[in-house]
């Protein structure tokens, strides 16, 4: 009986998200009086695997098999299921990101498990097993009980503190024995977004709406982004009209993000937009319309012209950075 956490890697490295998942798993294990096993698939050096021990991971199952690079949903889900079976794990944790969302539902069928996706924070209780998540696209919280013996969760990033809790970690090679015929997804082309801060990882996000008037006016926002090491985002019409790339679209039908700080420039604050950013710790709004709904959600605001405010922000940021 243990808690199994699937820790994905990015070119052989873990991210803050991996340590957040480990911390979350270790908090659950503590309450259940059990231990944490991490499953890592891909080429990750032993030192990097060992770093999970700092966050309470007792054992790492290390799968090195190039076939999994195709992220074949069926093959990876089956591999995770094998690891769960070999560990006798009762709680299985994945990230609530593209990979986690792809594998977790399949996994529940294999394991006869119940699933809750997008879990935020620590469980409400482990006996009975009750967790919290956001529903109605971020507008409310639900408490959900999982009634099966094995439980699968996907965990929402930035909703649990990374807690150091050094334990001894053993690394074991693990072969889930997945046959070649299970891999049918063939990758023809991969485009990595490089040199940019990924929106999902960004602690600070600078976002613009239709009030920015046109793509030619983004230089100021980009300068702010560079100074702050921030991710860039935008409202839907801005990406629909091709002012900005579609990866930057946040909201109900775009990405849902939860940074520490979200700057909204010339964004009215439509309910579908706010659905994607309302979990931000702080929201700053700049809008010339004092009645704009965004001010109902913002912590700090300026009623004014974005083009007057942005240069002052840049100056202010340079001052505090120096």
């Amino acid at each position, binding site marked *: 009986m243990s808690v199994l956490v699937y820790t994905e890697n990015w070119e052989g490295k873990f991210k803050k998200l991996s340590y957040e998942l480990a911390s979350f798993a270790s908090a659950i294990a503590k309450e259940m009086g059990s231990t944490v096993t991490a499953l890592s698939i891909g080429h990750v050096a032993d030192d990097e695997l060992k770093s999970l021990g700092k966050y309470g991971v007792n054992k790492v199952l290390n799968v090195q098999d190039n076939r999994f690079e195709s992220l074949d*949903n*069926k093959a990876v*889900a089956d591999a995770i299921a094998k690891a769960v079976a070999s560990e006798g794990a009762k709680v299985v944790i994945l990230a*609530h*990101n*593209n*990979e986690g*969302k*792809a594998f*977790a*539902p*399949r*996994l*529940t*069928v*294999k394991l006869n*498990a*119940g*699933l*809750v*996706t*997008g879990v935020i924070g620590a469980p409400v209780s482990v006996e009975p097993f009750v967790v919290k*998540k956001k529903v*109605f*696209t971020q507008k409310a*919280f*639900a*408490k959900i*009980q*999982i009634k099966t013996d094995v439980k699968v969760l*996907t965990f929402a990033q930035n909703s649990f503190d990374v807690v150091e809790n050094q334990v001894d970690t053993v690394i074991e090679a693990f072969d889930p024995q997945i046959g070649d015929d299970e891999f*049918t*997804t063939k*990758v*023809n082309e*991969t485009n*990595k*977004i490089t040199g940019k801060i*990924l929106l*999902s990882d960004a602690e*600070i996000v600078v976002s613009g709406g239709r009030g920015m008037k046109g793509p030619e006016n983004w230089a100021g926002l980009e300068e702010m982004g560079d100074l702050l090491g921030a991710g860039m985002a935008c409202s839907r019409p801005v990406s629909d009209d091709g002012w900005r790339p579609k990866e930057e679209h946040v909201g*109900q*039908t*775009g990405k849902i993000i939860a940074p520490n*700080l979200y700057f909204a420039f010339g964004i009215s604050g439509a309910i*579908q937009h706010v659905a994607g950013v*309302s979990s931000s*710790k*702080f929201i700053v709004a700049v809008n010339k319309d004092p009645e704009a709904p965004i001010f109902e959600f913002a*912590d*700090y605001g*300026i*009623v004014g012209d974005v083009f*007057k*405010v942005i240069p*002052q*922000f840049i100056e*202010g940021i340079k*001052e*505090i950075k120096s």
Partner: protein
Amino acid sequence: MKILVLISNVPDTTTKIRFTGDNKAFDTSGVQWIINPWDELALTRALEIKEAGGVESITVANVGTAATEPTLRKALAVGADDAIRIDAEPKDAFYVASQLAQIAKDYDLIMSGIESSDYNGAGVGGMLAAMLDIHSVSAVSGVSLENGAFTVQRDIDGGNQKVSVSAPLLVVVQKGIAKDPRIPAMRGIMMARKKPLNVIPAAAVEARTEFLGYEMPEAKAACKMVDEDNAKELIRLLHEEAKVL
């Protein structure tokens, strides 16, 4: 080739969210119901694929009570050929996927949305694929049929990929799968009345999760306003008061 598009019936995206009975249930009074935005885009893409040739029919399916029939009729009006409603009160993603598994066996391509905009389960698609023991690709922003195999565009964490997978396949779709949803024309609405909408009884299935209750987020403190000509002050507040810069 036959395509199945899964349709979740959800409150309009501008619905004010309220709960009844001691916050135990969603208050559906006065709610306008729509096709889940992702499913609407999936259906649009299915129609585009059909128009390109090689597709025999597009079926839409929902697990729900008779109250969801207007949503299915709308999908027929947009262009689906026939509809299936499995007559059940949906309880969770596993329950819904188990019901759909009864009718989903004979399709070459099944399309589901990444999540329902109400309960945000993000589960039905992947579960159904595993129940049918077919392949699935998630976070899909493009799908087309080329030489009998599917070419699929998907997001991965930190980029995107083009992959190919053979039929039968289930795709879990998201932004980008189609540009704008199709809107039913008058002719479509007329024709939809005559298209088949088959009702199938529910299978006996136990849900694996139970929604115990709901909470609304705490009311936010009033927004602290700073003057337009003194915008640097706001940066100072973020630095010294909020401590996020």
